[in-house]
Structure formats: structure tokens, C-alpha cells
């Protein structure tokens, strides 16, 4: 996936760029990730980065650009193409007290090391083998014409595996704050970064150290009539829809979950208790997506507050197709979201 071609295709994506903060902001999402790694490596000698081409090349997306100059090849470690070994070595090092960050060149290839993460990393503490504080991060998400193997949203694959944590930030601030929290966390964290956002969202970040706690959602927009519960790049789609619905006098609350495992049930339920209507929006295919769990929790714990069914808007139940026309149809769209909202509001 060349960055240029990703950029070129951006116009066709149903996620209007105007909602994305640009003016004034000076830190791109991707740079926020690099900053988080750099700052943590500066203050904590236990932190290191390991992965394919992360060293002198700075990573396929240049996420770790420059880090090797500052920290040397001993802490920014290029590896063979061996995802099992990369994550396995990260686990071993973590048990020894280090704080490894393992990069997947594309997050899709995390499937190669599914066993290491599910059998070893996730169970380590529970089995008495000690905490295994690794971070596994890599570019996720579609909308970049990456086709079936470079557009993945694998969060649901790992969602039924107790012992792991999963975060999926949608803003530069959250990317930095959650990555710092992940690196400092005592447990294994999958950090999904949305490649579409890498160089498309930016904002001013505080100069001081900050973290975004894992497990805390964020109300991005307050509303009274309906809550859209989402995360990752979909927050922009939700805001866009909210904006449009506002023109019709509909007040939509947009909740960015940010953390998926654990997730902020409380804030989610509170929001639904207020708006009485919920749409769960996510970029992965519908069936078996993590949004199903959000919906199930609401159906169990906020039932009394519900004035309408809980809707979900997600991608089609297919692999991610390559052609722009197909991918756009495959993905959640503003139109689908607004249609779902209107249906609920009529209810």
C-alpha cells in the first residue's frame, strides 16, 4: 500500500475530511504514536521497539522514523519476517521485566501469531507465569484501498480472550495517551492504529506528559435523542452524521469507546439512559463484531431505558474488497447511519 495511493483515494471515502481537525493542529496521529514511543523510551529504559523494518527504515509507514538514531539498534530492533518470534520474544522479554512494543507491519499479520497472543500472552498472569506487559501495535483499518489483507480490523478476533486488552484510538490525542497507557500497563495490550488517520488527523497536543486511561470512553458530542457508540476512525463518520441530523433538529450523542477490552460499560449505559436510543457503529464486518457485545450489554443492563431497538451499522459480512466502488459499498456510510438513526427516531 503506497501512502500516495492511499491519499489519492481518500476522496472516494465516505468520511468527509472537513470534520477532521486540521487548522492549528500540529501533531498528526502517526506522529502522536511516535511521540508516545519516544517519550516512554526516554523515561523508561525497559521500553524497546521490535519489528520488521522498524530501525533505520523507520517502519513501513515511518511510524518509528528517527527512533533508531536516538536509541540505537539495541532498542529499536529490526527482525526477520517472523511475527511469532517477534511477539514471542516480546513476551519473553516482558517476563524479564522489559516493556516491549512489538510492531506488526500491517495489523493483518497479527493473525499469524494468534496462538502466541491467545495462548501465551493472554494466559500468562492467570496461570501463575507472571504478568506479560507487551504492546502489540500496527496499522489497522480500511478505506485505503488495501484489499483483503491490508485493511483489517481484527479486534473481534481477540475479544473473547480474557487477559488481553485492546484499544483503538481515533484521534492524535488518544493515540498518544492510550499508547503511553498501554506501554505502562502491566498486561498485554493490542494497540490498533488506523492507517487512514495516520496523516489525516492532527491536533495540538499538550506539551506535558499525559495518558488516556485504558477502559475510559469519551463523549465526543453531547446529545439528547440518540447515542452513537463507536470507536476508531468511525468517530468521524458518527460526527458527520450527527452534524447532518442536527440540521433536522435531532440531537445526537457520539460516544468514542476508545478502549475495547476492557470497555467503559458505565459511560455507555449512562448515555443510553439519557438518550434512550442507541446505534452501535463499527468498521469491522457486522456479524460477531465487538459492537455485538456493546449491544448485548445495553440489552441486558439498560433495557428499561430503551425506547427503541438497538441498531448496528457496520461493514458487510465479506472480506474487504479492493476496488474503491466495492470497498465503499462494503463499509459503513453516512447514508446507512442516518437511515438507521431516522428509523430509531421514528420508533
Amino acid at each position, binding site marked *: 500500500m*503506497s501512502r500516495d*495511493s492511499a491519499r489519492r483515494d481518500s476522496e472516494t471515502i465516505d468520511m468527509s475530511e472537513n470534520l477532521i481537525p486540521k487548522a492549528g493542529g500540529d501533531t498528526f496521529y502517526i506522529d502522536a504514536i511516535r511521540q508516545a514511543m519516544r517519550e516512554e523510551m526516554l523515561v523508561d529504559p525497559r521500553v524497546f521497539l521490535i519489528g520488521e523494518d522498524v530501525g533505520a527504515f523507520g517502519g513501513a509507514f515511518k511510524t518509528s522514523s528517527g527512533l533508531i538514531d536516538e536509541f540505537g539498534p539495541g532498542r529499536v530492533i529490526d527482525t526477520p519476517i517472523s511475527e511469532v518470534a517477534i511477539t514471542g520474544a516480546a513476551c519473553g522479554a516482558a517476563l524479564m521485566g522489559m516493556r516491549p512494543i512489538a510492531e506488526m507491519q500491517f495489523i493483518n499479520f497479527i493473525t*499469524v501469531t494468534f496462538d502466541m497472543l491467545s495462548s501465551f500472552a493472554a494466559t500468562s498472569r492467570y496461570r501463575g507465569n507472571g504478568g506479560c506487559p507487551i504492546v502489540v501495535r500496527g496499522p489497522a483499518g480500511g478505506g485505503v*484501498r488495501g*484489499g483483503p489483507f491490508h485493511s483489517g480490523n481484527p479486534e473481534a478476533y481477540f475479544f473473547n480472550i480474557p487477559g488481553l486488552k485492546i484499544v483503538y484510538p481515533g484521534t492524535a490525542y488518544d493515540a498518544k495517551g492510550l499508547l503511553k497507557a498501554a506501554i505502562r500497563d502491566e498486561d498485554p495490550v493490542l494497540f490498533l492504529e488506523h492507517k487512514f488517520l495516520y496523516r489525516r488527523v492532527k491536533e495540538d497536543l499538550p506539551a506535558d506528559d499525559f495518558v488516556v486511561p485504558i477502559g475510559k470512553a469519551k463523549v465526543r458530542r453531547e446529545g439528547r435523542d440518540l447515542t452513537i457508540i463507536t470507536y476508531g476512525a468511525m468517530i468521524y463518520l458518527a460526527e458527520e452524521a450527527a452534524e447532518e441530523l442536527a440540521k433536522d433538529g435531532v440531537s445526537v450523542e457520539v460516544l468514542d469507546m476508545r478502549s475495547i477490552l476492557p470497555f467503559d460499560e458505565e459511560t455507555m449505559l449512562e448515555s443510553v439512559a439519557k438518550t434512550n436510543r442507541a446505534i452501535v457503529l463499527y468498521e469491522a464486518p457486522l456479524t460477531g463484531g465487538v459492537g455485538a457485545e456493546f449491544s448485548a450489554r445495553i440489552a441486558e443492563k439498560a433495557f428499561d431505558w430503551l425506547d427503541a431497538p438497538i441498531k448496528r451499522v457496520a461493514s458487510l459480512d465479506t472480506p474487504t474488497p*479492493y*476496488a474503491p*466502488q*466495492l470497498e465503499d459499498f462494503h463499509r459503513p456510510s453516512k447514508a446507512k447511519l442516518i437511515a438507521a438513526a431516522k428509523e430509531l427516531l421514528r420508533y
Partner: protein
Amino acid sequence: MTLTAASIEAGYGLSRERLLQIEYHLRLTRSLEERIVSLFRQSKVIGGIYRSLGQEGESVACATALDFAQGDIVSPLIRNMGSLLVAGARPVEILRQYMAKGNSLSRGRELNIHIKDFARGFMGPVSPLGAMIPVMAGVTLAGRMQGKNMVGMVHIGDGGASTGAFAEGPNFATVMKLPLVIVLENNGYAYSTPTVKQTLATRLADRALGVGATGETVDGNDVLATYAAAKRAVDRARGGGGVTLLEVVTFRMKGHAEHDNQSYVPKELIEEWKQKDPVDRYERAILESGVATADDLASIQASVKHELDEAVDEAERSLAPIAEDAARGVYHGDGFWDEPR
């Protein structure tokens, strides 16, 4: 030793006609990629381009050693467009893939050379490196069960050879004595990673030893030598001699993909390998041996140009996929793949 047409025929079993066929496939590969680059610059290609410049020789030579009429199947990697062309994929089919057209073999769902047609004898890869080795083991296992006399050939890079999926394949295929040829392309780099940072092994073909397969290393930019080694491996496979791990030593003359200027590759290395260009070397060989004249080469290039002009036209005229089709063809039974496109 000076080559002659007769000595090549005797030594390699390649007739003049087949030698010119090889030349045609070499030129077709190189030129088709150049066309793709120019379409890319015109924003007509979706996604990235992964060049095989300087490696066309091994793809074409290895695939030429197969016998597609016998049902042989080759599974190329991204830099083996040449194998596909030898197996009979048409340039327009590859162009439609790159341009994500609705009538591409994958109907716009897949990238570049991720296409399959067993009737012709090819199957493109999935992206996770290494996966195709086990898959091709299964293809040859099925072939044997079905009483076919087919051989499978599968490509992997110096980088891809570090994956666990790759590693399971050769052992599995070898202990089952499957008719499989694994072509390990040592082209010096895996993305930015030089082979010396990929492995300390000095000869990648030595991995064969550890699983009881046959290992061989050949100069992948010497088309005739590569053909000969591949032919030995194919014959061994077909004769029941099991798996060969054939290391072809070559060099990736471009960056990993179009956006990568390969700043991490020493200039001298590129210069050095430019001198070893497989197409140049091959053309010199067939000219000097009297197999072909300068006119022959010019006429091959002219016909390649003509073929590609038409292919590009045809590809450009092809329509984009229908959006709604994105929902179909995941499972059997909705008729999607039975409809013409």
C-alpha cells in the same frame, strides 16, 4: 566455452523456438511492468506496485521448466509476474487487476497478481508470506491422489522464508514425498532488511538439509542455468524424488514498492547488479550463440509493444465493478461467480 544453438539444445533441451519464447516472456514481463508504472503515474492503478526489475529471469526460467499441459501449477509471489505470463495469464488480465476492474479475474476484489486459474496452471498468493507453501503442498497432494502426474512450484522470498508457515511446508511436503519445487528467491532484501539481517545462514538452500529435501543454489540472473536447475527439480519431483528447495540468487533492483526509493541499498550494489541484468545476459547469450539475430529481438520487442498497447486499451475500456456486488460471492450459492462479467 562459447554457446551455440546446438550446444544449448543439447545441454538444456531447449529448441530455438522455446529460447525465443523465453526472450518473449522476459520482454513481456519487463515491458508490462513499465506500462503499469506509467498507468500508476496517471493514477489509473489502485494501490501499490511491486517491481521485479532485474528478477524477471528467474521467474520466467523456472516457470518455463514446468509442463502446464501435464497439469503443473505455479504459485508466484508478487515479484513473479513472469511466472504468470509463462503459465498463460494475459497482460490484460493483470492490468485489470492493477486497475481494479469489474471484469478482472478477481472482479475487482483483489490486487495485482492475486489471481488464479488452475486450468492454465497458476494461483497467485495471499499476502501473509509463507502461506502458499503449505497450500501448494496440498495442491500436489491432491494431484497425486487424483493420479495426475503434475508438479507444483511455489515461490518464496529470502524474507518470507523466515516465517513459520514457510517452515512447516517443506518438512511436511518432503516427508510426504510430494512433487513440489520451492523456489527461494534470495534477492538481497526483504523490504529494507538485507538478507544478512534476515538470517545468518550463508546458503539458504541449506534449509533443505534440515528436512531431508534436496537443496540447490543457482545464479538466478543466469536464465539458462536457472532453467536447468528448475528443470532438474521439476523432473525430480515428477519422478517421485520429492521436494527441491531451489535457491535462486538475484537482486531487487527497485524499492520494495513504487514509493520506496531504496535509499538503504548501497549504490555500488545496484551498479554491480545492473551489470548482471538477466535480460541483457540472456539476450547476449542468444545473440552470441546464433540462436537469434538483432532483428529477431527487435521483432519480439515490437510484438510485445503491440500486444501491450492493445492490452492497455482493453483494460482501460473495462468497467469498474458494480458497487452492490461487494455483498456477493462470499459463500457458495448466490450465483455470483456463475454470472459472466
